């Protein structure tokens, strides 16, 4: 298992005021000088991750205090030049919210060229509420996503003359990437899943599949992926195809680790602060999915603890650990918790580590990253690996 450092780059001074953290949050609560200071601090921490031998993941959101990165590829353009070794993962680019996917392809090619071929590209559906900022059509969302995906692939892999594109959603008279990506045929692609059904589709494509903060559901996601992969390629995928995202709070002693975890927990409590009418824009989810959601009620989508109960948003650190969303303690503790979770989920090769989250300050983040990189990462490289066919299981 290898590790990718990730932070949402929150403007956490805004957390103290009550109210929504997204969409309707008033702009005067942002001090742009403080925002700039924090953005530079998070970039410093990413550069430290590179020095420590960790890889790097960035994301993006819009109109949110919880995430100031408004463009994965803008952030990675900086890190492409300021880091030396780390793989640089954009996870991800909300492709169907972008008006111009050819522009996305150009930015991918430019960052790949700048970084010497270290870019990895996640193409994501994105959070439903992002539609209020992009104002792209909610209906037909995935059809548009896949056309943009096909166009992006065509642009990245084109070796010859410029081409034209006349699709349902996108039209280009001439497409040609200058520069073109260093990595051929294209930088590695990632997608995200929270169900076995969607993971199975990504398995068939062979893209790396990540699941975020999904706890026990990760096992069925990974199983679905393996099933799709075997179907398409005739052999099981390597562990490097699978990724899990969680919060890691590590320290020399447990008391400090739990204190860090408390500072990071505001990631969870603030991420949930969005007015309910924005969570599921009309026309975004299929009708049948909406009917099922209405019948199941709001708790159905929450991750579960080991006793089967939904994890409360304001749950304790122990609750979050129990559900597999946080891994907290000394390097030995964190290693043991991760090894157990790895075994329970059938194994994954990429830990997407929120090594900074919520209000965790710079000094604590530096120590957290350093301990994980020096004392946990080397042991995760050599996790006991039982053969895939033993733990492979079909899912419904």
């Amino acid at each position: 298992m290898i590790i990718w450092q990730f932070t949402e780059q929150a403007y956490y001074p805004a957390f103290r005021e009550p109210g929504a953290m997204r969409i309707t949050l008033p702009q005067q609560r942002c001090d742009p000088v403080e925002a700039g200071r924090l953005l530079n601090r998070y970039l410093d921490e990413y550069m430290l991750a590179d020095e420590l031998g960790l890889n790097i993941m960035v994301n993006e959101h819009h109109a949110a205090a919880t995430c100031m990165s408004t463009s994965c590829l803008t952030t990675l353009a900086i890190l492409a030049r300021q880091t030396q070794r780390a793989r640089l993962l954009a996870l991800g680019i909300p492709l169907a919210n972008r008006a111009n996917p050819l522009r996305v392809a150009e930015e991918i090619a430019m960052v790949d060229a700048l970084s010497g071929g270290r870019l990895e590209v996640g193409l994501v559906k994105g959070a439903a509420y992002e539609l209020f900022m992009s104002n792209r059509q909610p209906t037909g969302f995935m059809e548009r996503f896949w056309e943009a995906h096909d166009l992006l692939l065509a642009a990245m892999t084109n070796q010859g003359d410029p081409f034209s594109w006349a699709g349902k959603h996108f039209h280009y008279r001439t497409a040609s990437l200058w520069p073109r990506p260093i990595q051929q045929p294209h930088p590695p692609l990632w997608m995200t899943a929270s169900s076995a059904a969607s993971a199975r589709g990504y398995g068939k494509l062979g893209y790396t599949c990540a699941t975020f903060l999904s706890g026990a559901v990760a096992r069925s996601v990974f199983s679905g992926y393996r099933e799709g992969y075997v179907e398409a390629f005739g052999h099981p995928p390597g562990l490097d195809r699978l990724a899990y995202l969680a919060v890691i709070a590590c320290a020399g002693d447990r008391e400090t680790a739990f204190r860090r975890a408390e500072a990071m927990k505001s990631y969870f409590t603030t991420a949930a602060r969005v007015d309910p009418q924005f969570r599921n824009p009309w026309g975004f989810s299929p009708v049948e999915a909406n009917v099922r959601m209405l019948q199941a009620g709001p708790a159905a989508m929450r991750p579960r603890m080991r006793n089967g109960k939904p994890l409360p948003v304001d749950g304790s650190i122990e609750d979050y650990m129990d559900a597999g969303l946080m891994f907290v303690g000394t390097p030995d503790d964190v290693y043991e918790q991760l090894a157990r979770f790895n075994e329970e989920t059938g194994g994954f090769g990429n830990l997407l580590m929120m090594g900074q989250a919520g209000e965790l300050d710079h000094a604590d983040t530096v120590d957290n990253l350093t301990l994980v990189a020096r004392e946990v990462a080397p042991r995760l490289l050599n996790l006991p690996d039982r053969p895939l066919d033993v733990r492979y299981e079909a899912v419904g």
Partner: protein
Amino acid sequence: MVTDGLEELDFGTLSAFDLRGTPIELFTAGEGAPLLFLHGMDGLEGAAALLRVLAKDFKVFAPSHPGFGGSERPGDLDRVDDLGYFYLDLMDRLDLRQPIVVGSSFGGWVAAEILTKAPERAARLILLSPLGLPTADRREARVADIFMLPRAELDTRLGRSALAPADLSDERLRRAMRNDEALSLYGWTPYMHNPKLAGRLHRIACPTLIAWGAADALVAPAYRAVFAAALPDADTLLVEEAGHRLHADQPGEIAARIAAFAAR
């Protein structure tokens, strides 16, 4: 397609027919001059109270728009402009040569799209709180954004009760979710209007009655004035003690006004 279980429509016939490959749900009731009713955001079932009174004077034809209720939608039909042509086909199929056309809210927009394309196809046009014209001028909104409002506030502004999933059948929930999805398809952006419509409204030649609820909590007075001014031959009516859903708030008075206007 399931079309049963709408007990509020027990005074007529709910059926389905195939229009050029698309199953369309149609409610018919009453006897008299033909009247085509085009429903609003609350779907065919939301208009039951008005249809019940109209059926005393008219032969009412009330389809569910493609994508709403129990009607399917051709895959390439995604604009209200397209619905205009779709309804001309539907009127040909039902032999509605020159009916009274009534459209409420979203359905008023649909009616305007039909009759700007074929002005001769209506004897009279009645628009109840119609949408379809630009809903804002840059930062100045003239129609509240239904997609941004909290559900409870939207229900209050529309004068309707909240959806109660626990009390509703799968089929009822499915209809409600299909109505929401179709409104998003046709009305998300540009928000609830066709930028081309204003320049076409002069083509509507038949006598037109345009009615608003005095307590409409979606549509601002400035918007209402623009709509009336764009129609060549329109009477306007402001209905007291009614909000945006005139068809639900004052069904008796609206039906009487429609009958009187049709007989003029």
